[in-house]
């Protein structure tokens, strides 16, 4: 205790150099914690891109590519699945709900997702959060569109704006369904998932656009290399006009079921009981009627994260190095201070300080420095979060948590504290040895 007061006064006396040490160490701490928080949020956000869904079903393909095409809307599914199969599986008594997904069109670089009302009822992300409307309503009419938060924000769309869908998924598509504009009826709240980057329309809407397109007779004029639209069946030309007629009757409110698609890209399945998912998965994977794949989103997400996760590990290594450098900085400044403090140590020895007091003087100093740096680092972290949160959310859709320190972060802080203490032991031990050999000889 008597050395605590002395340590503190000594630190204050060397205020400037000590402040530099604390600043550099606190930057290291803040960086480490910041990177860790980004890492865990990114991982959490990633693995919670979709939740509450027990199975994703699509045409036979790999787990990751099905996940990428259906949930992340990256790349295209090579095959579609038939509507009959979808209906058959959704009627399985163990299945609670299904959400059909039909992909293939885009709007100004954003994917268009054809789906049903179940999407808004059952789709979950994060910690089983449901989709919420920021404004407007769900789509009800064939030409209604509900925008993801990012689409609305980036393109500046408002309710009742008209948008034109383009064929294929390229950023710049020259083939637009200009004859069938959609009307924005709703905008979803931001989710930090690919949902934000989608334009949602009804399956009927997708059908209507393509039937109309096919019906125009100009079919061979556009390139199909970049699209695989379920409704875009090339063997179906002769029925085009019939279907157009069907749409018109639907629009007139005559027959709501006539716009049933023939194929969809994939669908999501929610089970009554989670346990049944394994059995359904097995039977879908071995389904004789069509080559299907069913994957559990959690498993596929983990698999995908292992690929993406290399980046986060690199980040962690870099921030650990930065912390190591700042700890080395503390070590060198403690060592440098020892020479100027030799006199101080001899004086303390002369008034009866034992070598262990001298040892504790340095150890206490390094503990105080590390503690101060950690406190400053945490303050800095929250300061940075406060500033960076909106920017990161806008640029990446990553929702940085502003909450309390997680137990993992506390463990990291504890480790920094421990390493700080160990670093302090080096000069403390040197000083101890020196004070034994110097005794009361004052060396300046």
């Amino acid at each position: 205790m008597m050395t605590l007061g002395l340590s503190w006064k000594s630190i204050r006396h060397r205020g400037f150099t000590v402040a530099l040490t604390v600043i550099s160490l606190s930057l290291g701490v803040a960086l480490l914690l910041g990177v860790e928080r980004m890492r865990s949020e990114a991982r959490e956000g990633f693995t919670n891109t979709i939740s509450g869904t027990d199975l994703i079903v699509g045409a036979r393909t790999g787990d990751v590519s099905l996940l990428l095409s259906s949930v992340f809307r990256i790349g295209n599914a090579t095959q579609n699945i038939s509507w009959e199969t979808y209906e058959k599986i959704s009627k399985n008594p163990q299945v609670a709900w299904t959400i059909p997904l039909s992909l293939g069109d885009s709007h100004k670089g954003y994917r268009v997702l054809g789906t049903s009302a179940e999407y808004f009822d059952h789709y979950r992300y994060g910690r089983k959060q449901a989709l919420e409307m920021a404004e407007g309503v769900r789509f009800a009419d064939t030409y209604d569109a509900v925008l993801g938060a990012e689409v609305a924000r980036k393109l500046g769309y408002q309710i009742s704006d008209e948008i034109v869908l383009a064929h294929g998924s390229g950023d710049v598509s020259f083939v637009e369904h200009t004859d069938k504009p959609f009307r924005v009826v709703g905008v979803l709240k931001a989710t930090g998932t690919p949902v934000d980057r989608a334009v949602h329309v009804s399956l009927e809407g997708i059908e209507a656009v393509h039937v109309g397109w096919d019906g125009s007779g100009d079919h061979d004029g556009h390139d199909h290399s970049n699209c695989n639209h379920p409704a875009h069946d090339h063997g179906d030309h002769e029925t085009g006009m019939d279907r157009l007629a069907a749409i018109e009757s639907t629009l007139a409110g005559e027959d709501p079921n006539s716009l049933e698609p023939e194929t969809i890209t994939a669908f999501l399945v929610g089970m009554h009981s989670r346990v049944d998912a394994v059995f359904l998965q097995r039977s879908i994977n071995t389904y004789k009627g069509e080559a299907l794949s069913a994957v559990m989103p959690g498993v596929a997400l983990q698999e995908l994260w292992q690929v993406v996760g290399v980046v986060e590990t690199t980040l962690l290594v870099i921030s650990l190095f930065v912390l190591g450098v700042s700890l080395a900085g503390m070590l060198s400044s403690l060592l440098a201070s020892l020479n100027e403090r030799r006199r101080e140590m001899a004086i303390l020895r002369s008034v009866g300080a034992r070598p262990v007091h001298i040892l504790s003087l340095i150890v206490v100093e390094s503990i105080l420095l590390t503690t101060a740096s950690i406190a400053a680092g945490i303050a800095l972290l929250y300061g940075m979060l406060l500033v960076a949160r909106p920017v990161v959310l806008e640029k990446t859709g990553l929702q940085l948590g502003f909450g309390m320190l997680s137990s993992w972060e506390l463990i990291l802080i504890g480790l920094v504290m421990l390493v700080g203490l160990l670093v302090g032991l080096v000069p403390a031990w040197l000083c101890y040895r020196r004070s034994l050999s110097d005794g009361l000889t004052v060396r300046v």
Partner: protein
Amino acid sequence: MNEPSSNVDAVPAIVLDSLRYAWSDVMSPDLVINDLQVRSGDRWFIEGASGSGKSTLLGLLSGVLAPQKGGVTVLGKRFDDMGGAERDRFRADHIGYIFQMFNLIPYLSVIENVTLPLRFSKRRRKRVSDPDKEARRLLEHLGMGKLAERKVTKLSVGQQQRVAAARALIGSPELILADEPTSALDEGHSEGFVKLLFDECKTAGSTLVFVSHDSRLAGLFDQSFRLEGGHP
């Protein structure tokens, strides 16, 4: 050489007996003292040029060094029976020490410097009812009353030595060891300082061992002793 002093006590302050100390095994001993007794309350002058084993003797008397052969007995306690930590505690309780220069810790105030030994010794702390008041009283006696609030780095060498004397004296330790405390002072100030030190030692009842190469001061002391090349 051992003339009786005014203050005769049963236990001698220091007894050195067939003392040998060598910094390295292969060399001949740096310090050899066959027999030396310092009676309690005496004021001793130990004269020695640099390299005469002065620092070694002070290290042994303060208990920082342990003798390799022979005995060092301070206030009736044999140092060679005690461990390092025990000698450190003994020093804290019973010995006041004044360095040649740079006596003060720059980040402490004058008063904090003076009261520093009380942090390490309960015994000395108990003898002082109010540390700050006692520090001021000592500083006052040493002519430093007005400078108690000044930053230690702003004090002259002579003023610093007087603060160091106050620190050595606080809590009335039985033995004051002074390592060339006047070497940085000019002649007039040296004598003044020695006399102040005498007065305070008398008040506190402390024995004074004053080591210096300046033989002109020897006449002021009760006893003197000469170290020469480690062999008196």
